[in-house]
C-alpha cells in the first residue's frame, strides 16, 4: 500500500505514468465514470480549504465513488482531543482512501503510519501540498507538451510560497529546465532551495526584481501573491507592488505561447483583464487538478482500467 506525502514520493517514471493516466482521463472521461463504484474517499480536513477539498470530492465522484468526511476540526473528534493516529484508525474502517489536510506539519505522515488505507497529504501547514505540485506539472505538460527544455518564471512571494518550492524541487528532475525567480529582495527563495536544490542539481537560474524584465524569455509564468505584510517597510511596498501585478501591458511583452499559472486564490496580482487572454491558464489549471487527483486515487487504490 502506498501513500502520497511529498511530490517527490513518485519517481520521474512513476510521475510520467500518473500524468499519462490523467491525460487519458481528460480525453476519455466516460471510460472512468464508474471505475470506483463502491469505493469511498474520506476527506479529513482539519482546516478549511474550499478548492482542494472540492477538487478531491469532484475527483472521487467523477470516478463513480462516494465521499464522506469533515471540513473543519471543530466538526471532528479532534475537537474532543482525539489523536490523528486514532482518527485514521477509525476512518480506515469507513473508507478505502483518505485525503487529509491538517494545520500541523507532518500530520498526514503520522496518519499514514497507523492507517490501513492509502493516505494523501492534502496540505500540512506550510510543509507540503503534493497534489498542487502534481496539478502544476500536469498543467505544464498538457499545455506545453513537455516538462523538459522550459524556462519557468516564478513570480511573487518566493520565500514563503510552498507551492513554488515544491514545484522547483519537482522540475529540477527534468533536463534543461531554467528558472527565472522574480521577487523583491526580501521575498527571494530561501537559501536551501538555491543551494541544496538548484545549485546542487546544476540548474540554471537567475533572480530578477521586475516582472517586465523577465517576461519576454518565459515559457511558463507561475504567479503568486505578494502580501503587503511581507514587506519590511511601507516605502518598499509602494515602490514595488506594481512590479508583481500582471496586466495586459506586461502580457504584450510575453511570448505568444507563454502560459500563466497560479495556484489560486488570485487577489489582485493578475488583473481581471488578463483572464480573457488565451494564455491565462489558471482556471484550466483547477480543472487539471481534478484530473490529476482522479489519476492519483486510481493509482493508490490500484484500480486497473
Amino acid at each position, binding site marked *: 500500500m502506498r501513500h502520497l506525502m511529498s511530490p517527490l514520493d513518485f519517481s520521474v517514471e512513476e510521475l510520467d505514468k500518473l500524468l499519462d493516466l490523467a491525460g487519458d482521463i481528460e480525453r476519455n472521461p466516460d471510460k472512468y465514470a464508474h471505475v470506483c463504484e463502491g469505493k469511498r474517499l474520506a476527506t479529513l480536513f482539519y482546516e478549511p480549504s474550499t478548492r482542494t477539498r472540492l477538487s478531491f470530492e469532484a475527483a472521487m465522484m467523477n470516478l463513480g465513488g462516494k465521499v464522506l468526511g469533515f471540513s473543519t476540526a471543530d466538526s471532528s473528534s479532534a475537537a474532543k482531543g482525539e*489523536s*490523528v493516529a486514532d482518527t485514521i484508525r477509525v476512518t480506515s474502517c469507513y473508507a478505502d482512501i483518505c485525503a487529509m489536510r491538517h494545520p*500541523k*506539519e*507532518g*500530520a498526514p*505522515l*503520522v496518519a499514514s503510519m497507523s492507517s490501513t488505507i492509502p493516505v494523501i497529504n492534502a496540505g500540512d501547514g506550510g510543509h507540503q501540498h503534493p497534489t498542487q505540485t502534481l496539478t502544476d506539472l500536469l498543467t505544464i505538460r498538457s499545455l506545453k507538451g513537455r516538462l523538459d527544455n522550459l524556462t519557468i518564471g516564478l513570480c511573487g512571494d518566493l520565500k514563503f510560497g510552498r507551492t513554488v518550492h515544491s514545484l522547483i524541487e519537482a522540475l529540477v528532475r527534468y533536463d534543461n529546465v531554467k528558472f527565472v525567480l522574480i521577487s523583491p529582495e526580501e521575498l527571494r527563495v530561501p537559501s536551501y532551495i538555491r543551494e*541544496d536544490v538548484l545549485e546542487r542539481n546544476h540548474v540554471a537560474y537567475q533572480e530578477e526584481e521586475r516582472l517586465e524584465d523577465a517576461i519576454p524569455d518565459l515559457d511558463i509564468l507561475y504567479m503568486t501573491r505578494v502580501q503587503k505584510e511581507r514587506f519590511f517597510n511601507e516605502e518598499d511596498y509602494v515602490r514595488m507592488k506594481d512590479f508583481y501585478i500582471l496586466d495586459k501591458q506586461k502580457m504584450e511583452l510575453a511570448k505568444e505561447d507563454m502560459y500563466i499559472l497560479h495556484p489560486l486564490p488570485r487577489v489582485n496580482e493578475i488583473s481581471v483583464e488578463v483572464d480573457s487572454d488565451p494564455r491565462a491558464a489558471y482556471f484550466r489549471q483547477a480543472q487539471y487538478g481534478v484530473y490529476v487527483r482522479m489519476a492519483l486515487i486510481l493509482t493508490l487504490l490500484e484500480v486497473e482500467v
Partner: protein
Amino acid sequence: MLNVGALREGYVLDHIKAGKAMTIYHDLKLDKLDCTVAIIKNARSNKMGVKDIIKVECPIEDLDLDILGFIDHNITVNIIKDEQIVAKKQLKLPKQITNVIKCKNPRCITSIEQGLDHVFILADEEKEIYRCKYCEEKYRGKRNK
C-alpha cells in the same frame, strides 16, 4: 595520569571533549544503570590537549552507540573484557535517532500528538544535518561539539 582501577568487563569512552563528560553521562542515562562508573575530567591528551574519559563496568549491549554517535562521533569506544581492550568501536552519525532530541517547530505535529516518538533523520551526512521526520525542520540545537 590519575589511575582508576582497571575494568573487568565494560567500556571506556575516550577522547570526550573536555567538560562534556557529565552531559554524556546523563544523555546515555548512566545514572540509571546499577554499575560502576568512573568519570575522569580534564585528563591530559596528546591529541586534544585535555579530554574527558568515562569508564563503565557493564555489558556493552547496554550502551546506545547511536546516541553517542549523534552527540560526538569522534569519541573512541574501547570494549574491555578480562581487563583487556578487545575491540575499538568507530562511531558513525546514526541514520536516525529516536527520542533523543525534540522538534522545536511549534507547527510540527509532534507538538500536539500524544505518544508520538520524536524522530530525526540524517539528511546530509557531510554537513551533519538532521531533520525532523515529520515536518523536516532542521535540528538547530547544539550537538556536543
